[in-house]
């Protein structure tokens, strides 16, 4: 090796990101494991940037109010909405939960609506990914500002689904049954499709955004050419800013291409706040009073100014991933091997390196451990919502990241998982896996109890 090469190698090794599975967010990783574990800024943010993080935090946390209001920076709520502050659903920047049985208001869970597409609706489908209910739109808003009717109420109850493991242990899963009552604007479309979704945790989103498209595409195996039973594919969704179809990566079905569009979509759909990226409230043509309501527009013509949208984007990109607590524990390490052996890592891909030209320099060239491939997989009938979204079929879901999952209890006081919060713990979540994940799930079902516990312990160590 000549001196030149040596110099290059030295240079590269000094600058290359350090791979440390105990620090899943790379240099941005934080070490808190308490109730604030999901609320901290990337550890490598400079102080001047931490100030911006605290500004974004303020807009993420503080409630928006009805317009007109003295709070001009934060008015324009509704008229229909699910909640009045981001933080109400992303509780402590963490995971939402389904409402209690027969609780009147869902808050940190919402119900998406759509109807089957008809011939001639291809353009709409290309841009919206779904055909919204003609009266109620793309999601049910169970709150409204004074003078308007909430669209309805979400009621949820559960059906028991017993599962017997190989060692005779019976685990009783619960399958949610969602019912909409008190419809204020007449009946829904007879073929309406409902999909309940809880708010996902906010950590590490900027790092996920910084994974290159090619990395995601390289994993695709839509026709399962390698015959491993796994046929992941990326969703292809509409980018409002670029006005074209791109890869989807955020949301339970990867229906959003960028964090900014995801944020703008949540502002519009969940809070009734327009922005440059999402210019209309979720009022349908049949909801006249909603259409005619006073708005809280700023000089640019939107309720969420470009400045505030940018602050919230910066904040949501930099909510840091916490370090793992006990990666060296022998049971955890055994669980990690079982996780790989059972094929879980085929979709819950442990590691990526983020792009060197990531939008925020702190998030660039980091070796991260999100345990997701961000691709869509058929998860079987048990988990299906039968509601397609862009390319995602009714039984396809995007692999959710697992980082931070073991801190859900510490941050949110519960361990409910999956898109509608039906799983009450890690084992239940695993047992819901079907479709492409059926084989892996079956392996877990046949594991001796000690192995199962080690596997769960590993997942909870993340």
């Amino acid at each position, binding site marked *: 090796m000549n001196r030149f090469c040596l110099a290059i190698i030295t240079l590269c090794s000094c600058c290359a990101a350090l791979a440390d599975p105990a620090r899943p967010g790379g240099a941005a990783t*934080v*070490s*808190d*494991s*308490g109730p*604030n574990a999901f*609320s*901290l*800024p990337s*550890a*490598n*943010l*400079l*102080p*001047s940037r*931490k*100030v*911006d*993080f*605290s*500004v974004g*935090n*303020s*807009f993420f*946390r*503080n*409630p928006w*109010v*009805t*317009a*007109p*209001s*003295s*709070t*001009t*920076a*934060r*008015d324009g*709520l*509704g008229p229909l909405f699910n909640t*009045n*502050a981001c933080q109400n659903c992303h509780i402590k920047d963490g995971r939402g939960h389904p409402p209690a049985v027969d609780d009147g208001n869902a808050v940190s869970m919402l119900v998406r609506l759509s109807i089957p597409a008809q011939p001639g609706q291809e353009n709409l489908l290309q841009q919206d990914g779904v055909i919204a209910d003609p009266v109620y739109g793309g999601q049910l808003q169970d*709150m409204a*500002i*004074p003078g308007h009717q909430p669209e309805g109420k979400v009621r949820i109850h559960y059906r028991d689904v017993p599962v017997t493991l190989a060692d005779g242990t019976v685990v009783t899963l619960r399958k949610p049954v969602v019912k909409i009552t008190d419809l204020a604007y007449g009946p829904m479309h007879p073929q309406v499709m409902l999909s309940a979704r809880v708010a996902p945790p906010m950590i590490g989103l900027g790092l996920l955004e910084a994974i290159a498209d090619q990395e995601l595409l390289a994993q695709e195996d839509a026709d399962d050419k390698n015959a491993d039973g796994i046929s992941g594919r990326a969703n292809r969704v509409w980018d409002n800013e670029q006005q074209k179809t791109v890869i989807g990566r955020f949301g339970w079905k990867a229906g959003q291409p960028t964090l900014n569009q995801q944020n703008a979509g949540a502002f519009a759909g969940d809070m009734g706040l327009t922005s440059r990226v999402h210019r209309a409230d979720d009022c349908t043509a049949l909801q006249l009073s909603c259409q005619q309501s*006073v*708005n*809280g*527009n700023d*000089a640019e013509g939107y309720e969420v100014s470009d*400045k*505030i949208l940018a*602050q919230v984007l910066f904040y949501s990109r930099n909510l*840091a991933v916490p370090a793992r607590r006990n990666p060296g524990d022998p049971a955890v390490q055994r669980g990690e091997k079982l996780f790989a052996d059972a094929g879980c890592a085929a979709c819950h891909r442990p590691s990526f390196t983020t792009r060197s030209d990531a939008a925020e320099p702190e998030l660039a060239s980091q070796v991260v451990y999100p345990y997701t491939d961000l691709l869509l997989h058929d998860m079987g009938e048990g988990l299906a919502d039968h509601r397609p979204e862009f390319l995602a079929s009714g039984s396809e879901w995007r692999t959710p990241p697992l980082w931070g999952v073991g801190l859900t209890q510490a941050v949110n006081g519960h361990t409910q998982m999956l898109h509608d919060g039906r799983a009450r713990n890690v084992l239940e979540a695993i047992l819901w896996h079907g479709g492409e994940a059926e084989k892996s799930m079956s392996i877990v079902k046949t594991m001796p109890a000690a192995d199962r516990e080690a596997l769960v312990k590993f997942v909870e160590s993340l």
Partner: protein
Amino acid sequence: MRRALFPLVLALAVAACGKQPADPVPASPAAPPPAATAATVKPAAQDEAAVRPVINHYSDIALAVFSDALATAQALQQAIDRLVAEPTEANLQAARTAWLAARVPYMQSEVFRFGNSVVDDREGQLNAWPLDEGLIDYVAADYQAALGNAGASANIIANTALIVGEKALDLSTITPELLASLNELGGSEANVATGYHAIEFLLWGQDLNGTNAGAGNRPASDYAQGGACTHGHCERRAQYLQAAAALLVKDLQAMVAQWQPAADNYRAQLAKEPVEQGLRKMLFGMGSLSLGELAGERMKVALEANSTEDEHDCFSDNTHHSHFYNGKGIRNVYLGEYRRVDGSVLSGPSLAALVKSRDVAADLLLQQKLATTESALQTLVDSANNGQHFDQLIASGNASGNALVRGAIDALVAQTVAIENAAKALGIQELNPDTADHSF
């Protein structure tokens, strides 16, 4: 709202300051100072004999600051009693002056909030902001109640009963205990019934000037008896004001008690903790107030939103002093020096001397940054004295005003870097609690 159609409504709506729904009251213990960038210094074993006196003196300063806050609050209480007994414009002015004086030591106490949860826990009842003034008293006709906040239009002064959900609250006698129980009524953190800002509202009233010049302008006759009473319910308004003042005094008495020597209190607990923990609390408090709270929550949010709603002392237009004395408090802790309300100076073993003994340059840098911050905050005070207050400086389109505020923010950020650097000189790596995993 549609500006083109309703410019007048907008002008009025913009004006009411102080009403805003839930802001976590003691704004989240702030983005803490930065993590160490170059972890080269080994954590030094702390020299107990050198460090313990510094921590004890820190407690002495806390005691002096809270004692001054208490004394000035008692003076405020007396001024309020005089106002109620004899509601003249002169007595109202005297009460306002007493309130402004009470803010001087109190704002210097806030550096003790972060890192010392005993202080932070009581802070909500003492200093919560912003508040929904419709909870307390009458407001302008265009006042927009925050959605979903049942308390926003409760008007405790005008009502002897309040229905919240299925509960009927008896408000017939306004006592300190009743007011304390009404904080965060119905779960909304904007429902602030007590503390400095509730009193501020009762002395000044709504600031209806928006980002234009002028503070609140409540008449003394709001406390007049009989037919001279303006805006109704003067007797209950007086009762409210006196109850809020009594609670303020009581809370500050409790704070003073936590810092008294030779007692079974927080000070004793701090004295038993390892000295490194004490140093970490001191520096964490300085950094947290400097960066996340003052530069971020109190200044940059207001600047970015161009929003008087996010102004700290908004009824009285005293925000410049509020910020200035916050900065002073940070400086006090570092220099081990506090100028008391009576003009005497308390000084003793300081963090500055300790840092200097380990790293002359680190001390020099932080001293410079503290001085730069103080002058930057002084420019906000000077501007107010020349007629342009903080709520005008943050107005959209006020480029030179915005620049002044931005200059203060930048100084606070640079100061935080120097605080972190000084911490490293003392062998305290990663002052950021998220990496130290200390919830204190």
